[in-house]
């Protein structure tokens, strides 16, 4: 996983609430096992019904084509657990999502893949959204995970909260499986304890 320390880039506003995984990355039928995640990102919003590009969609506008920071509202990523909704963001160049809140599974999937989910409380979110709209893609913002702050045009630095654990994982780009396998003895111990206390949990056999 690619570590995240600091990122400077264009911030694109997509300020509505409850943007769901079917909107972020719809299930693409007939694409086979290897999806083109970049194409999947906001597949429907990017296109008009006749298939041509929708010039009004924010990420299609020339100023935001290279945006790396997505700024959005409440409950971003509601819906499915499909990780393509995160992989498509990364394939489309988005490294950080600033939201008022995230859906639980989506946020976890972000952390698993080095996509930084920043949550801003109401007032900071209002102020930041206004600055992003004012900047209108003409000047970049910097998201600094080390110092937990966002800086850029239009005002003072904005501090954000993230748990020390999540911050460390992202900064070090830690391989989650490797991290857990350090505890493999404890896991084996647990299995022995469970086999004694609730043995039916440690075997799963068709008893017919």
């Amino acid at each position, binding site marked *: 996983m690619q570590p995240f320390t600091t990122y400077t880039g264009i911030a694109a506003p997509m300020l509505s609430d409850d943007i769901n995984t079917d909107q972020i990355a719809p299930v693409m039928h007939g694409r086979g096992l290897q999806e083109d995640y970049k194409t999947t990102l906001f597949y429907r919003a990017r296109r008009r019904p006749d298939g041509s590009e929708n010039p009004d969609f924010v990420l299609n506008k020339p100023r935001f084509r290279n945006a790396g920071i997505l700024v959005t509202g409440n*409950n971003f990523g509601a819906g499915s657990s499909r990780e393509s909704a995160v992989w498509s963001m990364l394939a489309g160049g988005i490294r950080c999502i600033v939201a008022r809140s995230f859906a639980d599974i989506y946020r976890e999937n972000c952390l698993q893949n080095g996509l930084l989910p920043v949550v801003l409380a109401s007032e900071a979110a209002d102020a930041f959204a206004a600055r992003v709209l004012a900047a209108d893609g003409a000047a970049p913002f910097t998201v600094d995970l080390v110092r937990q702050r966002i800086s850029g045009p239009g005002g003072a630095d904005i501090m954000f909260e993230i748990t020390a654990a999540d911050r460390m994982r992202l900064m070090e780009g830690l391989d989650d499986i490797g991290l857990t396998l350090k505890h493999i003895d404890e896991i084996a111990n647990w299995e022995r304890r469970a086999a004694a206390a609730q043995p039916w*949990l*440690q075997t799963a056999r068709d*008893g017919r």
Partner: protein
Amino acid sequence: MPSTLFDKIWDFHLAGRRVDGRDLLYIDRHVLHELHAHHGFARLEKEGRAVYRPDLTFAVQDHTVATRPGRDDGTNPSGTAFIKAMRDGARRNGIRLFDVDDPEQGISHVVAPEMGIVLPGATHAVPDSHASTVGGVGALAFGCGTTEMTHILATQVMALARPKRMRARLDGRLGAHVGAKDVALRLIAEIGVAGARGYAVEYAGSAIAAMPIEQRMTLCNLNVEMGGRSGFVAPDEATFAWLAGRPYAPKGAMWDRALAYWRTLPTDDDAEFDHEAVLDCSSLEPQVTWGIDPSQVVGISDRVPDLVELDPARRPAAESAFAYMGVRPGMPVAGLPVDRVFIGSCTNSRLPDLEIAAAVVRGRRIAPGVSAMVVPGSSSVKRAAEAAGLDRVFREAGFFWGESGCSMCAGGNGDRGAPGERCVSTTNRNFENRQGPRVRTHLASPATAAASAIAGCIADVRQMFPGAA
């Protein structure tokens, strides 16, 4: 110290704590499906790792399988590669697969409890957000992403932050033709699509105690639509009776021992929750969604809300919902003409769901111009329904009777509506384009869906049983 069902399961399953502060929670039963499993196998093989507990891992073919009778790997061409990759991966890793032609194939969340694979007090994970369906038998379940799935394959644990605890108290006796789906939709409408975010939800109260296990599963299925990852009902004597004798359930002396343990699981009387939501179900009528998220819900005799009745924060979403759904504020939902009806999905495809729908359509015909389909949640459900003659009831009424799978829930198998169609569906998500480009989905119970197929419009099932309400 008094403790909740959730705390009892979590604390027992705690295998360690990682340096980043996450709890390592042991997963007793892990069920894969074809849409995601191949990513996990490929990554493990690339990294030279093995599946740690193939004996506690299961796999199903459900998301992409065709529903047409006589189906095989190629019937839905867009699923073929996934189905084959699932089969090869399961074989290479020694995982029990419920394959396309297995007599017990079906949707993971239907198959796992019906086979007795999940048990009360057990932890469970599936790379599908509706994993908490099996909370209906008192298991603690997690929908997970692909990377988390791969992590479980390699370690049999999930690395989680402990959620807070919420209790949803559902009291009162449900009226005739009102069921768990209506209760769940009302609850989502009340607390919103993010109302349970960060919480593990225990459903309790007199309405739950009276609910058959299948209905409890419907309720827990919809938990994620209010933002909660895990939702469950404490196991009781009805749960134990339901599980007894199922193929993977413990047998003999082991069953007795398990039973004694399971009886200690329910939340202690004075245990505390971080949050409580309350819903009186006694005057609840059948519910139906009018919009494009599962909280945009009204009672069947109600109207699409006017903007002024809505919380200002919810108005922009309502406006796009009006446009997408082709509804006007203030119009009654009943009477909206429908093109399509779908009865199925992990929400409402178990035998009692089909019995309820069949009771509505028996001796009737679907309205001209409506296409209607019933897709059982598992091949076992299908067999049982056929043994009871339900397939004939549906076919004679003009329904398509399909092979089991996810089908029109997300359309991954090619079963989809045509652009602009209005569909009453027993599934769990009414997001735009989910059941096909520009398809307008109204979520409802099997009873309401069946009644709407007969009437040709969104209908109040109670009016089809005069005198019964």
